[in-house]
């Protein structure tokens, strides 16, 4: 595959992240539910979960991720033309959290703001939307936030969900200069009659078997379909960054696709399933080093929906 991007193509240039420093140990809580430590380490995969402060809001976590982004790039606040926040845990119902983040950061007036209501597939949806908006409207600088702090919607006595989720935020900077990754193609899906598999009115409820079955049945073929329509095979992908739903699900999908472990890492043992932030947390290092040629991102979960992004490196001219 040879792709020669124009020097002005939109690319993902840098990612800032924020993981709250507080950790809650699953090894201690797991014993209350009768889980063996081997199960927590080797199957569920989450030894600890990151937990935000009780008074921290989604917008606060986004601001912390933006601060990290500013350390990692030359982004100037006055240049930001688009802010979008992937979340299903907004600060308030109205206004949208992106407008609150815009205000807290003191961004400029000519700036589009909107939220994207998506879950674990949210980052892949938002990358496609962000690139699409930038290419359609000619924007040069956009910041895509992810933040779904589940701490506030988890029943700590519900063993189906109590040990899964961690709090985090990320900020992805899309621009038209410098090194980074360009979106080559993407595909998406939503499984009919499966919207109840993860549901929250006051507290999150999960049908674990339905989530697992949909992930196992829908995700591997959707990845193959995306690769095939780009005349690529699994071996052409340098890194497959899967949503870190659990170690078991990551391993299951990786094995189905016959990908070696080092190409499809599980790296969330210390902080948990961070929903839409799980992929950009993994992606940060890849974007920073730009060492891999082809990346494939795959998010899946709430809906039950899924999305895949095929990315190719763009290296800055020297």
């Amino acid at each position: 595959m040879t792709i020669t991007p124009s020097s002005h193509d939109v690319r993902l240039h840098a990612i800032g992240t924020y993981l709250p420093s507080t950790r809650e140990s699953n090894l201690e809580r797991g014993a209350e539910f009768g889980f063996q430590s081997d199960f927590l380490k080797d199957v569920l995969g989450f030894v600890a979960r990151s937990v935000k402060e009780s008074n921290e809001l989604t917008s606060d976590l986004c601001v912390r991720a933006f601060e990290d982004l500013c350390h990692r790039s030359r982004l100037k606040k006055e240049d930001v033309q688009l802010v979008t926040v992937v979340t299903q845990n907004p600060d308030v119902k109205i206004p949208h959290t992106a407008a609150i983040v815009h205000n807290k950061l003191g961004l400029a007036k000519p700036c589009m703001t909107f939220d994207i209501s998506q879950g674990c597939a949210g980052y892949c949806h938002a990358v496609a939307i962000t690139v699409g908006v930038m290419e359609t409207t000619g924007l040069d600088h956009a910041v895509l936030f992810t933040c779904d702090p589940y701490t506030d919607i988890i029943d700590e006595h519900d063993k189906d969900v109590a040990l899964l989720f961690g709090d985090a935020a990320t900020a992805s900077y899309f621009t038209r200069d410098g090194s980074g990754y360009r979106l080559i193609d993407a595909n998406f899906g939503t499984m009919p009659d499966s919207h109840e598999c993860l549901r929250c009115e006051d507290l999150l409820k999960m049908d674990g078997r339905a989530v697992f079955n949909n992930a196992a049945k829908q995700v591997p073929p959707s990845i193959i379909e995306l690769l095939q329509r780009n005349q690529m095979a699994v071996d052409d992908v340098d890194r497959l960054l899967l949503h870190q739903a659990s170690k078991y699900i990551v391993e299951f999908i990786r094995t189905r696709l016959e990908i070696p472990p080092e190409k499809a890492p599980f790296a969330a043992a210390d902080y948990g399933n961070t929903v839409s932030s799980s992929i950009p947390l993994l992606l940060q290092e890849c974007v920073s080093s730009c060492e891999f040629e082809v990346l494939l991102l795959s998010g899946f979960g709430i809906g039950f929906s899924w999305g895949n992004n095929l990315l190719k490196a763009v290296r800055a001219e020297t």
Partner: protein
Amino acid sequence: MKTVDDIIQLMKNAGVARGKCDSLLPDQSLADQGLDSYDRMTLLFEIEEMLDTDIPTSEASKLTTLQAIADYVNEQSN
């Protein structure tokens, strides 16, 4: 006609309950014999793939032993 041994072989091929398969008793609850929730989900998933059908939650909740699973597979295959 599928036997309990066939179900155990299916589990081995799918990497379910690694290290425990050969000691499983047919009429004892799989949960009581140390299978975790992911083992159970994967086993049911493999059965669904083999039968090319979805196992409803109401049926899945009854499939708690190897014998019950073998009986279910044979019923569905007839």
